[in-house]
């Protein structure tokens, strides 16, 4: 009986050790086409091209639009390597320290829009960054001009 208990206990430990840490997107995540509402009334405020880091490629164009006082940030023709917990930031630095987190990436590929809460000071927040938050890896950044 005691060996059965011991075996069950060890089994529980292994199960705990194998729990999935953070559900992320898979490589099968379909691309999103989420820029349909960008029309001629949207004012292009800032734009930049993603510079991928040495190992993890994030490519595409980042545009910041403004309409009726509301800012939005668009990833266009976007592709990225798979990664867990990828977030889009507005950042003051290329290697992010002071950030505004736009949230988790909606997809590894395709056009996508994120609404910016409030009115950030774009003279300070001069970069858009794709960042693996959990493992602290920058996949790419775009200087915004």
């Amino acid at each position, binding site marked *: *009986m*005691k060996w059965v*208990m*011991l075996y069950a*206990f060890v089994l*529980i*430990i292994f199960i*705990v050790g194998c*729990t999935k*840490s*953070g559900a992320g997107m898979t490589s099968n995540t379909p691309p999103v086409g989420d820029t349909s509402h960008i029309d001629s009334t949207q004012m292009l405020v800032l734009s930049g091209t993603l510079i991928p880091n040495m190992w993890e490629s994030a490519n595409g164009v980042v545009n910041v639009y403004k309409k009726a006082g509301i800012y939005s940030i668009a990833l266009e023709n976007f592709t990225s390597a798979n990664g867990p917990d990828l977030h889009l930031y507005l950042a003051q630095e290329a290697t*992010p*320290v*002071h*950030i*505004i*987190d736009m949230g988790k990436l909606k997809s590894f590929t395709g056009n996508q829009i994120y609404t910016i809460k409030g009115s950030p000071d774009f003279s300070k927040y001069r970069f858009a960054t794709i*960042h693996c*938050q*959990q*493992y*602290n890896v920058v996949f790419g950044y775009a200087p915004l001009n």
Partner: protein
Amino acid sequence: MKIIAAFFLLVMAYASASAQVPFKKLSQLADLAVTFGESENSIAASYIHNWSLGKKHRWELGAGIRTTSYFGVKRNYITAPARLARSTTIPFVIVLAAQEEQNFDTLTVQRPLTFSTNLTFNAGYHFSPKWYGGLNIDVIGFTVGRTTSALLASDGTTTLESKAKPAAFNLLLTGDNDLGSLNSEFYLRYNLSPHWGIRGVYQFLFSEYKTSSPDIYQVAPDGTKVTRFRNKVNAFGVALTYVF
């Protein structure tokens, strides 16, 4: 709470009235416990040395040593210093003191992993030859662990700390006065045999991380810099005990 207290009183009364069985004057135990929380878990290994009290040796007090490994994903740590976290810092009274939530900032530690080794205080009671209830709490020790990234949300801004580190020194000072990572358990043990027992555990664990980058800290209302942040873990678990 009253129901739980009444239950324990009933169990104790029953145990006292049941057949008298001699309990050991000295108990030495080894124990392995696992607890399960929300995106956080712990594994603790301990050695316990208890001395019995009273004529019937039902009560036990003792000391021990425990190593606790705590790990999680994206756990929120809040402002740790007691003078900011509570309305009073008087030992023991602080446990019941109001929380000063307006002073709380949050450090979201991405991948906390700590190994804390502490001396423990233990107390328990033999309800019957099969059932034993007790508590234990870490008193003093040290912690090593993983340096990991974290997000500090403070005063409406968010900063990314790439080098959040576990607090190295642990000391029980009661409530939010505590320093570092300290584990405590309330438990009920069932003895399967003279040597083996299993425990059902309620765990209350403090885990502490510190920011280490020079420009990443919370500015308290009194202007001081705060680098200590604490996660309070409530979890349940199971344990396997070997009685020597």
